[in-house]
């Protein structure tokens, strides 16, 4: 046991040295993180513009811009650390799951009171995260009960405020990445945020691992509920018909991060990639856009098989890539109950 640890300790650094961690980190920054947040800033900018020109919830242009911006978020939704964590920006963009119905409740409260808090960007930024971001906009654009609330002019102003606010959050995240955080990661070891390159790698590894857990346990696990009590209405973004799409898009984006993270270990990279491709293929074959099928045993089984495929990818990640890089996922927001 003790001898094993000694051997492991001697062996690991040499294994990692095959490719300097800095190359891996540069590659992930330049080809995964920065382009992802650039796209999010651009797409939310288009969304804010679309809402300014037409705030009718049924406007096709508005809904299309909303869909594109939401897509851009899902592609980076596993990167919740650093600039996305600062000032609760990721929550302001994406507060879900909402187990206590805070989003419809806060939106109704705002509309009923015609709360002037939405009039300026600064004051709207103090509003509950449940009434901000993509999931609040989904209610405003797709939920019949919220759309029945009067006055319509206030709802229109709220859609504009939420869209502009999402763009503001996305811009703030991007600016932080460009001006500060990318530099901290590149120079890991020379600053207090990342005291070593291993710490930067551990952060990326942890984000990927947490992202897979989020997909398996929440995006898929919530609608599955229990066998006796499936809960399709707890699926993510079912009102806009995006539940399965989010699983597909997040897996594709996370597969990209996994490939880059495993670049120094081609064999593990290929095994990891096969595990991801298996899950992606399953997701693409599943003809059940909002997981309504979980109510039948056969339909639930298909979702469960997909969930297992996602967990298998996480298993390869933690059992093979983690030890090979000499790191393990740290603590994440999904710890706790």
């Amino acid at each position, binding site marked *: 046991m003790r001898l094993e640890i000694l051997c492991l*300790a*001697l062996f690991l650094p040499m294994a990692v040295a095959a490719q300097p961690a800095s190359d891996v980190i540069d590659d992930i920054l330049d080809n995964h993180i920065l382009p992802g947040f650039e796209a999010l800033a651009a797409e939310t900018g288009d969304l804010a513009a679309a809402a300014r020109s037409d705030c009718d919830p049924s406007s096709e242009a508005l809904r299309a811009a909303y869909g594109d911006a939401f897509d851009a978020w899902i592609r980076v939704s596993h990167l919740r650390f650093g600039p996305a964590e600062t000032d609760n920006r990721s929550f302001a963009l994406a507060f879900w799951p909402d187990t206590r*119905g805070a989003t419809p409740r806060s939106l109704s409260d705002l509309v009923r009171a015609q709360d002037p808090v939405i009039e300026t960007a600064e004051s709207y930024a103090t509003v509950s995260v449940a009434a901000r971001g993509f999931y609040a906009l989904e209610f405003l654009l797709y939920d019949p009960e919220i759309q029945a609330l009067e006055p319509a002019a206030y709802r229109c102003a709220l859609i504009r405020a939420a869209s502009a606010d999402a763009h503001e959050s996305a811009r703030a995240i991007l600016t932080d990445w460009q001006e500060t955080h990318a530099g901290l990661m590149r120079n890991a070891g020379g600053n207090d945020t990342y005291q070593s390159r291993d710490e930067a790698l551990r952060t990326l590894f942890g984000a990927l691992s947490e992202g897979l857990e989020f997909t398996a346990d929440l995006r898929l696990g919530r609608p599955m509920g229990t066998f*006796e009590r499936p809960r399709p209405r707890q699926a993510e973004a079912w009102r806009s018909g995006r539940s399965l799409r989010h699983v597909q898009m997040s897996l594709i984006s996370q597969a990209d991060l996994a490939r880059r993270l495993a670049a120094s270990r081609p064999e593990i990279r290929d095994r990891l990639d096969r595990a991801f491709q298996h899950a992606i293929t399953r997701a693409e074959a599943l003809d059940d856009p909002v997981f309504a099928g979980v109510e039948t045993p056969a339909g639930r089984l298909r979702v469960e098989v997909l969930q297992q495929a996602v967990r298998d990818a996480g298993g390869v990640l933690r059992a093979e890539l*983690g030890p090979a890089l000499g790191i393990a*996922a740290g603590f994440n*927001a*999904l710890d706790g*109950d």
Partner: protein
Amino acid sequence: MKRLLLTGTALVAGLATGAQAQDASDVVSHYADMAQAKYTDALITAERLQDAVAALVAEPSAQNMTAARAAWIAARVPYQQTEVYRFGNAIVDDWEGRVNAWPLDEGLIDYVDGAYGGPTDENEFAALNVVANASFTLSGTDVDAAEITPALLQDTLHEADGVEANVATGYHAVEFLLWGQDLNGHGPGAGDRPWTDYAAGDACTGGNCDRRAAYLTAATDLLVSDLEWMAAQWAEGGAAREELLDDPQSGLATMLTGMGSLSYGELAGERMRLGLMLNDPEEEHDCFSDNTHNSHFYNGIGMQNVYLGEYVRVDGTLVAGPSLSDLAAAVDPELDREMRTRLSDTLMALGRIKTAAESGFAYDQMLERGDEAGEALIMGGVNGLIAQTESIERLVAALDLDQIAFEGSDSLDNPSAVFE
């Protein structure tokens, strides 16, 4: 250069493993001793609460109601210090939902204000009101609740219909029965249940005072027996202690997992930042009694206990022994200093929340939209907890527990969501 340095560190850590393994068992054994002391203290103070509840039920009065509330507040002090044992120790985590489940749809238990609403999409039984109903149907089964017993609470009502918000047992159920709903929103004031909710005959308010008293008694009895069980798990030969001592290296990982998961996902995330982000006065851990500032503070003290190996018992005795800090100082004195500093910084920040709350600025007031002072206080705590989590992760790596931490930790392997 960097590579070389890493190889050197790893070599030293590898060679040091022999000495560390010996110390590890001492540290883990003391950790179990502290757990035994803490759960025993939680039991002692719960028994005092049980006595106070018995007095209230036997002789309902404003004075006895106040005494029972004071006993509840005191009972929380040792219990909150045990929470650092929860994550990582599967035996605690599996049991914890019975004693400290939160948040709850309190309408399951007793009457609520009209604004509470009725059944919800998430919970059909959110307004069941067991105190007022001697029989009802639950998930298709007829339930005879004529007699309110610990068994009814634990086996039938708790997490009824598979919904976690159906909390029928534990500290927060008792808290609701002693304080009632806090209807002050973001304004000052806690729950204000009148003592006459337990009065006999015509003096009874809220209806069914005898059933309410039976519920309170059953829930308190259950709390005592649950704590008795947990204290026994940490005694000599107890299952929780044995499991740790079987593999001390893995035991060290468990200790740090408990600290890290409580710091980050649970306290900084679910219990603090979420409430602030939602500006919801119900999103506070002890929402009926307005005791949240203490619950957070003693969570912080509990984490420091584990690191320093020091715990002050409810009778004032100091339990002290070999600590994680000793191990860390031997491997990386700078990191040990960082860890101690950050734990103290967190306590200072949580202490500020406590200070403000005790001088009249309650935790639910701090959560109000646009309240900058409240936000700064709470975010001070959150930031302290996030910073200490980083140091805990560094410790896991410095003590070479990375892979063990991953393999051995239940809460890392099977996390359930922060919002659930």
